[in-house]
Every structure is written in C-alpha cells, then in structure tokens.
C-alpha cells in the first residue's frame, strides 16, 4: 500500500497484512515524511459490518512503541479523516480540509 502526499512525495509504503474485501483490511503504518518521528511500524485494522444499508466502520490502530509520538498524531488525525470519509460518502463532498490548522493536541486516555 503506497500513499503520496499532495506535493507528490511518498508518505507511506506499507505491507498489506490482511485483505478480505469488503469486510476487513489490515496494513502496516509507517509515515515516511522527513518531519515525522522515526518509529517502528504500527498497524491499522479496518472492520466493516453492514447494517440495513449502512456500514459500521471500526478502525483499530495499535502496536505502537512505548511513548510513541505517532500515536498522538493519529489520535488527532483519524477522527478528521473518518468524519470527512463519512461526509463524502453521504453527500458527495468531503469536509473542508482546513481542520488540520485547527487541530489541538488532545489527550486520549487508555482504551479510548
């Protein structure tokens, strides 16, 4: 799985760990941008469950290093990305991407 940034740089080149369309997708996670902390790859799991024409999407991001800085970044990032994904699927338009400018550091307690 590769991802490129809007400026064309490679931001991810991660192995697919499991793919069972359209129920489950698991891949490794290591940001490659130079300004991102150099940590061991973590892991993202997407689980999709259908319900009356709707879908419950569960995202589990785990296997972080102790004291990971990336954990804090993704804790801010996923809610915005997944909110925009939902808006895009339901209305055809994504959310205004300027959320990035307004994200504050927030504390996510254990298990949340």
């Amino acid at each position, binding site marked *: 799985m590769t991802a490129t940034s809007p400026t064309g740089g490679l931001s991810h080149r991660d192995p697919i760990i499991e793919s069972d369309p359209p129920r489950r997708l698991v891949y490794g996670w290591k940001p490659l941008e130079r300004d991102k902390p150099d940590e061991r790859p973590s892991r993202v799991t997407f689980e999709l469950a259908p*319900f*009356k024409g*709707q879908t419950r999407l569960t995202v589990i991001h785990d296997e972080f290093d102790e004291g990971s800085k990336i954990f804090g970044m993704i804790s801010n990032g996923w*809610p*915005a990305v997944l*909110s*925009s994904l*939902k*808006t895009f699927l*339901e*209305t055809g*338009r994504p*959310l*205004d*991407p*300027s*959320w990035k*400018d*307004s*994200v*504050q550091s*927030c*504390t*996510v*307690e254990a*298990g*949340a």
Partner: protein
Amino acid sequence: MTAIGNFKPRTVYVTYIASTPEKVWQALTSSDFTRKYFWDRTVEIEPRQGGAFVLRLPDGRSNVEGEVIVWELPRQLTVSWQVAWPEEFRKLPECLVRYEIDQAGDAVRLTMTESHSWDVPDAILSGGRSGWPAILSSLKSLLETGKPLSIAMAPPTKMIEAIKRLT
C-alpha cells in the same frame, strides 16, 4: 453540586460536522433533533449551570437524569448523567458527559468525553463505547443530510452482566 475534579475521562469520541456551532448546540439540546438521532428520546434541559437535565423515553419515563455542570453556549455543555432506566442500571454511579464544540475550518469539531469517578470495568464502559459512535454518527448525518441513521442497538450483554454484579 457534583465535584467534577474526581471524574476522569475514560471514553472520548471526536467527530467533525459540516455545520455551525449553534446548529450542533441546538441538536444536543432540542428534542426536535434528539428524537431523530437519539433513539426517540426527548431532552429537557434548564439553560443554566445547576439546571435540571432529563433524557426521556417516548413513553414519558426518564432514561437519564442529571444536572447542568457547564452551560457555555455554543462552546461547552457538561451534564451529570445518572441512568434511571433500565431499572437495574440505577446502580451505576453518575458519570459526566461533556460536549465541546469548536470551529475547525468550515466544519465543527464535536468532542464527547465521558468521565467517571470510580474504577469502571471495561465491560461497563463498553455501553458508551458502542453507543456514542452510533448516536453521534447519526447526529452528524442528520445535520449534514437532513436524515438520521437507523441503528438498532441494545446495551452489550457483558455490560448488563457487569451491572448485575455491582453491589
């Protein structure tokens, strides 16, 4: 008055909504909205700190009772949250539910934080952790598309069993 310093955040859910802070506030505090996204419940809330807060079932029984801890329109609403129905859930100590509303570009960031004053087992937290994403996803759909989601949901079995074991 609830001593909020004793409560620790245990569940946080963040969602971004294409709406305004005022609209999101209205969705949280008006029955015209809660009826659509919060499983037919109506809300009664006195618009001041110390005011009464009730979530009511369609048959008129109260589902949740509490008190307004913070009323800061349209930025923050915090209420104490005592489950009154189902009957056996009355054993649960009250928790705090805080909604924070922030402008984020053209969208609004809504942060729901559920805090507890005791060492809550994960089995009991599982109720909020399955319920809040459903409720707040439906609120987001309602504000963005005019239509709520339709999600049937009951408290997780492990939660009900853990509540039975409470003394």
